[in-house]
């Protein structure tokens, strides 16, 4: 042993977590390799939830396959069905009525609101702040009621169909009034929450400089969505989508890359979503909500990217005799797993769960890949 160094033993150990673990809401497995309570390496294993949705979709009629994509995720279900319908509409050259586009945007932004509220509630629960967590669950109920009112179900509402939206999701005057009132209530409650959250010195000191992802690493690891925006990269796919062209909103970025920036990006994105919903209600065009004059034909592989609450979502499939072939779905959490592992490294083991939760993981979405053992 080198004489200059003090004679101390460094304990190296492996700390496994999962697949069912108290702090993790979903089943997944994390292996943390620690050295004196400092995480030196982390490994996240997914595949626990694999149900083979793409394989089930193979050969289904396109209308059925679209509604099946909704069952991939219970948090961002509208994003999946919307993107799947966009693929079909792009392939079959279906023109979607403008009113249907606006209703889809309203559903998507409502979903972003409840997803971000859930993220902040889960983050506060992991931080140990139960009061804020319950407060956010309470605020979230307003959005869930609105989604239930429009779609008829609180979680899987199935708004989009090929060529427009379902007749159940038509917005009449009564529903528009409820939406307006709901948005006012949301803004009031969330402003009160954000003021208290940002000005709380205990929470801010707990989450500053924890789980840092630098901008270079975020770009190298191909992060998407709010996880990337929290490192200072101004990239939001909504600014490039033609559906979002009529709306005026800001892309929120933060510079730190730590847990504080990740939480604050979501906190400040919520008012932007409320702004988009208000613009959509104000400018809601008249007209039909479904275009039924389209014909089925065989199409090559068509793809579509949209921005969902967690990042960029990719769907692609080809059509043969009205049936889906070669379906591929890639969800944002898949891209963010690298960031979750990277954020744990170099920090204390008690911060590991926070470092993983800060990237807003959704492992039920993520379990796409299978290991082929023999052919």
């Amino acid at each position, binding site marked *: 042993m080198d004489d200059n160094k003090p004679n101390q033993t460094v304990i190296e150990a492996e700390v496994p977590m999962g697949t069912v673990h108290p702090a993790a809401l979903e089943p997944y497995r994390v292996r943390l390799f620690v050295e004196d309570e400092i995480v030196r390496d982390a490994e996240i294993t997914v595949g626990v*939830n694999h149900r083979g949705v793409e394989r089930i979709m193979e050969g289904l009629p396109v209308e059925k396959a679209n509604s099946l994509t909704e069952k991939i995720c*219970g948090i961002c279900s509208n994003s999946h069905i919307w993107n799947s319908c966009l693929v079909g509409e792009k392939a079959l050259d279906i023109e979607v009525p403008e009113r249907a586009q606006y209703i889809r945007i309203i559903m998507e932004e409502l979903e972003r609101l409840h997803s971000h509220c859930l993220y902040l509630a889960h983050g506060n629960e992991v931080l140990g702040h139960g009061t804020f967590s319950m407060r956010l*669950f309470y605020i979230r109920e307003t959005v869930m009621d609105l989604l239930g009112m429009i779609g008829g179900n609180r979680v899987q509402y199935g708004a989009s169909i090929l060529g427009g939206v379902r007749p159940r999701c038509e917005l009449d005057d009564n529903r528009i009034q409820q939406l307006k009132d709901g948005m006012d209530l949301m803004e009031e409650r969330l402003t009160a929450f954000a003021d208290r959250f940002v000005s709380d010195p205990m929470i801010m000191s707990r989450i500053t400089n924890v789980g840092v992802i630098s901008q270079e690493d975020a770009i190298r690891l191909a992060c998407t969505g709010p996880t990337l925006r929290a490192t200072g990269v101004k990239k939001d796919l909504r600014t490039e989508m033609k559906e979002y062209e009529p709306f005026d909103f800001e892309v929120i970025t933060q510079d730190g890359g730590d847990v504080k920036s990740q939480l604050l990006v979501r906190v400040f994105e919520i008012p932007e979503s409320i702004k988009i919903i208000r613009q959509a209600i104000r400018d809601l065009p008249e007209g039909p909500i479904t275009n039924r004059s389209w014909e089925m034909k065989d199409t090559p592989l068509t793809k579509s990217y949209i921005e969902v609450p967690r990042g960029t979502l990719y769907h692609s499939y080809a059509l043969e005799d009205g049936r889906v072939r070669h379906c591929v779905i890639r969800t944002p959490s898949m891209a963010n797993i690298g960031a979750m592992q990277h954020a744990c490294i170099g920090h204390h083991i008690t911060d590991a769960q926070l470092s993983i939760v800060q990237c807003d993981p959704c492992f039920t979405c993520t379990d796409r890949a299978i290991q082929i053992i023999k052919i």
Partner: protein
Amino acid sequence: MSLKSYSRGRAVHVMLVYTGGCNGCDIEIVNCILSPKFDAEQYKVFLTWNPREADVLVVTGPVTKYNEGPLREIYQAIPEPKAVVAAGACALMGGVYKNCHGDIPSEEIAGPVDQIIPVDAKVPGCAVRPQDIVAGLVSALPLLLNAE
């Protein structure tokens, strides 16, 4: 009434296990117990993640092959008397994942839940509504309270 069942009636601990559902039911159950709107905690129903502390096991999702072993282990770790509630369409009959093409069973799914562990109460719905979960939990309680 024994002391144990008396104390159980005062504080029912629910353990929630995710076995590969879509997160919809899971968040509704957490919402039902924790959130101030439904708030099952006011009826002394608490959420726990420790099987040795739990009285009621709530299972969601079609049980994937990977999750079959952990689910059996969790069931065995819960002390007697215990009750199992299967919540959601997937847990009851496999949902959209089990019977993928007509009658061809899926290779990924080992469930539904009642083929793996005995189920006492079933809560239907996709996703389950919080009101139904409270009703399902209440219907499983006599098993705990009337046990010897």
